[in-house]
């Protein structure tokens, strides 16, 4: 486990935030806990008429509350588009996304997104950027403590007052992850959150994500290019891929794999090895 002291702090503030929320605004204890996500016959195409470009076709998927679902697929197959639909940043052409049974319509505050690019506000410090993720109504002191703690967890404590342009791409990406975590969301949408990180930091951040998920089992949709990352982090992996039938353009879910074993998993286990080769083969074939 990474930084045990910090994790305890994280859990305690998560819990106290939940108790506060439960005690004050919403009496339901389900508030802020993991939420199930359903993609129901979701199709998304861009353009219209002859220039219509179908990106996602007929996506049907049930993501269980508290599950970590990895989404893999070739570049440009529509992974980000799928996440954007879940966040309500993009509306499906047909079909719907349901979170906890209610359709997503416009930007949904039950989700938090870490975008593929960091998208930090250049004129704010990392601390202020992370603070933007805090749920509305967070008290000043509690918010400050939470931001400080998250910056510590993503190993940016020493850079809290730096501007985004003064830190590296990987550091900006971690700040963006911290901003999404600050939201304490029911559904966490992560679009290649570790893409810009070096191997060691990547492993650390994967552990961090698992720790946070254990402390507060939110539903996580994780887009990744890295098959090993998917095998390490996910309960299930879905592959987005195009059909070979030219009459059916656009990507759909071509495979749903349940990853065996509890986390943290042995990276060298034979089961994972087989799954890895099969996934790589699928991606290799469907990637072009």
């Amino acid at each position, binding site marked *: 486990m990474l930084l045990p002291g910090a994790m305890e702090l994280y859990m305690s503030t998560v819990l106290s935030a939940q108790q506060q929320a439960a005690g004050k605004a919403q009496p339901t204890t389900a508030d802020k806990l993991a939420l199930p996500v359903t993609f129901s016959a979701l199709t998304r195409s861009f353009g219209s008429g002859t220039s219509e470009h179908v990106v996602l076709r007929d996506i049907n998927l049930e993501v269980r509350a508290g599950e970590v679902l990895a989404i893999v697929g070739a570049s440009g197959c529509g992974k980000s588009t799928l996440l954007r639909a879940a966040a309500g*940043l993009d509306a499906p052409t047909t079909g719907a996304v349901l979170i906890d049974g209610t359709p997503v319509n416009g930007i949904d505050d039950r989700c938090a*997104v870490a*975008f593929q690019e960091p*998208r930090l*506000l250049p*004129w704010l410090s990392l601390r202020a950027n992370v603070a*933007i993720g805090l749920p509305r109504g967070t008290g000043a002191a509690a918010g400050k403590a939470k931001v400080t703690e998250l910056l510590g967890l993503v190993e940016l404590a020493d850079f809290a007052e730096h501007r985004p342009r003064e830190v590296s791409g990987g550091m900006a990406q971690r700040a963006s992850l911290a901003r999404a975590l600050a939201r304490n969301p029911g559904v966490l949408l992560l679009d290649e959150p570790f893409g810009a990180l070096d191997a060691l930091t990547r492993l650390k951040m994967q552990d961090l994500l698992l720790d946070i998920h254990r402390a507060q089992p939110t539903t996580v949709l994780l887009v990744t290019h890295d098959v090993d990352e998917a095998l390490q982090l996910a309960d299930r992996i879905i592959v987005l891929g195009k059909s070979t039938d030219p009459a059916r353009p656009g990507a759909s879910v071509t495979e749903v794999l349940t990853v065996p074993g509890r986390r943290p998993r042995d990276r060298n286990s034979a089961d994972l090895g087989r799954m890895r080769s099969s996934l790589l083969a699928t991606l290799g074939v469907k990637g072009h």
Partner: protein
Amino acid sequence: MTQENAYPVSKEGLAANGHTLTTVDDDGPATQPNEPAPGLLSRRPVRLLLGLVVPALILVLWQLNSVVGVFSAVQLPPPSAVGTAAVELIERGELWIHIAISTQRVLIGFALGATLGLALGALLGLSRLADALLSPTIGALRAVPSLAWVPLLILWMKIGEDSKVTLILIGAFFPVFTTLFLALRHVDRNLVEAARAFGLKGIRLLTTVQLPAVVPAVFSGLRLALAQAWLFLVAAELIASSLGLGFLLTDSTNNGRTDRIFLAIILLAVIGKTTDALLGIAERWAVRRWT
């Protein structure tokens, strides 16, 4: 008015505004984040000294002329004569009045034009409806060469302060309006979307993302506007006035006082450069603060 590009604007301001500029700003080193290690040329005192080389050279050649006599003293009085003219006008108490009234006109016209430019630029930049409603009209008004308004202004407001200030206002309005409008249109959509994804909307979105994003552009717009304001001041005073640096120009022309013409031109250069430099400092601060 399409003269905006003729005026000095800092690289930072334009870069922040999404433009690229190849001319070099003459106001000193830009403190850009990714700039290569500073050489001798980016040291402030060195640059200041280098900047003074050409004016000093001109002064020397100018003084030499009075010895060699390429131009007659009427065409080109020696520098000392310009100095004497200045002393004379100062002693009569007139020079300060000319400078003060001109500066006052510029500042009032600039302030009003900039305010109007900021207001309308923000309105059209943020509201598609206002844009659709007003853009064609404002575009058409901008297509009118601004001096074409002079007869109308004189007809409506007589030859008083109002007509001059209004002309300067028109000159200052368009650069501010245009830069703010374009900057608001070009605020990074990804940033706006990210902020909206975290629940920001309305006024909070405006003050958290859109306004900070355009601050550098606003400052470069203000600098362009200030340069335009001086341009229009001289135009207004040349046409009709009894005080001010533009009046000093026409009056001296009529009286054949070339020394005073030179004095007025030098004063315009110095004052214009000074006010521009002050805004330039503000602009650089804003670029550092907001990007």
